[in-house]
């Protein structure tokens, strides 16, 4: 069984790891570290090491890149260790049993990222008032929220040890259309960010450039170069920008300006 002090320590560790997965060292949260830490709290470092190592190997190759949220390794790694030590499951069974809670962690991430989208208007307000303290608070709030949601997910996981129906219930949430919709909406919200940048940067004569950038990225994506696409896009973009710069500087130095190039003289 897990004692009250052990439970509190595990929740604190979860809270820190939840924040660390996107911030700070971005390495404390890895299962290779969390396994032995949770194992030590529960009095069995050796099992913790084994579970952490196994989860880490499973994790390599499913990095959180590109925006989609895979089942969460923080809650997954911690719960797998708890199951292995407390319930005495072997390593593979523990990894399997942790999956529903990894899913719960993934929901926590989706909810936080959605809620914080709404709170960006508050950040704008702080900027308008030139209030740095407000921005600092907003960031701390977001981290605390994520940490608490994750601690909650782990708490549910610990409860499930004595109450197996909890785990079944969470598994039944997988594939829920509301979470599917939230996740789809999450993927769309970045378009608002793009649209705002376009509203500010896009002079009417630059639509061609916008679509040219889109087209180049599409071609690179189709060529299987999705990863380095933006580097290659930058090469072409810099060439265009340098050309534009040199042309305009030459025109200026040649004493243009008043007449302009469109006179057709």
């Amino acid at each position, binding site marked *: 069984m897990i004692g009250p002090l052990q439970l509190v320590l595990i929740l604190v560790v979860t809270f820190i790891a939840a924040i660390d997965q*996107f911030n700070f060292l971005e390495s404390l949260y890895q299962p290779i570290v969390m396994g032995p830490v949770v194992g030590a709290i529960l009095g069995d470092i050796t099992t913790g090491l084994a579970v952490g190592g196994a989860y880490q190997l499973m994790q*390599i190759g499913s990095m959180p890149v590109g925006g989609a949220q895979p089942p969460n390794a923080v809650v997954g790694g911690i719960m797998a260790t708890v199951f292995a030590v407390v319930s005495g499951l072997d390593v593979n069974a523990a990894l399997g049993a942790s999956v529903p809670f990894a899913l719960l962690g993934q929901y926590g991430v989706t909810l936080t990222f959605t809620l914080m989208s709404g709170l960006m208007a508050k950040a704008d307000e702080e900027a308008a008032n030139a209030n*740095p303290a407000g921005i600092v608070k907003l960031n701390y709030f977001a981290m605390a929220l994520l940490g608490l949601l994750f601690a909650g997910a782990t708490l549910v996981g610990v409860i499930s040890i004595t109450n197996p129906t909890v785990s079944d219930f969470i598994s039944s949430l997988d594939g829920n259309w509301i979470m599917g919709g939230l*996740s789809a909406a999450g993927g769309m919200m970045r378009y*608002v960010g793009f649209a705002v940048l376009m509203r500010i940067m896009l002079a009417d004569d630059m639509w061609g450039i916008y679509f040219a950038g889109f*087209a180049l990225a599409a071609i690179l994506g189709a060529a299987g170069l999705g990863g380095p696409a933006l*580097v290659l896009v930058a090469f072409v973009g810099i060439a265009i*920008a340098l050309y534009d710069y040199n042309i305009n500087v030459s025109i200026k130095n040649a004493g243009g300006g008043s007449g302009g190039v469109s006179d057709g003289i």
Partner: protein
Amino acid sequence: MVSNVNTYKDLTPARPLDRATLNKMVWRSLFLQASFNYERMQAAGWLYGILPGLEKIHTNKEDLSASMGHNLEFFNTHPFLVTFVMGIVLSLEQQKADIPTIRAVRVAAMGPLGGIGDAIFWFTLLPITAGITANMALEGNIIAPFLFLVVFNVVQFAVRYWLMYWSYDLGTTAIEVLTRNAKEFTHAASMLGVFVVGALTCNYGATTIRIALQNGESVIDVQGILDGVLPQLVPLSLTLMVYFLIKKKGWSTIKCIGLLLVIGIIGAAFGIWGGNYTPLVEWYTLPA
């Protein structure tokens, strides 16, 4: 949301930032993704990171407000390489460059770093360090987690410090050329920025259509048909729709987010958007 100020009130270059402030910002760069969100991604964490510098640079309230405002726009780069963007943007802020110039340089710099950072850290450093130490851990070697943390973080911090100082110096040296032809530079940089935003729309576009209908022997795959018309047509259309709502209809960003939330959830109820879920109304069955 967006201030329409294009130049700072106080155009006297501020004193160069001291090492203590630069170091503080390297430390703060660790929290780039603190308030990560779907709309502007790292924007507020980015602002949090450079605030110590901005507060030193902009001593009057209006300029600080303008600077904070434009630094809250969409931002996303690789978290381990962000100090490169910080250094160059801070050097421009310190020299009181035009806001459109600073914005364009920021957007142009943040995009490519994402792919580079993923390749270095997530596809190379992490698999190697974590892979080797995970096997050590499986053999019960207690050194494994410590070795992983030390190697990973030594590389991370070396990169963060070096990039911050290097790019701040780079920006400070480049500024002379820039001010000589400021107008031309801003135009060229804005072109590069717009080009990158166009590429981002395609590269970060994450919305697909799930609908697929069995038609006798063949399958009508809606996403496949759309890809045949134009790849990433859905993300492009949604972006242009939001642009239209903001620019022509004067919608606020929060209203747009609300709309997308509704579109996302209602669409999922009818199984329109791609993803691993079971729709509420199953009006078609996915072909096996």
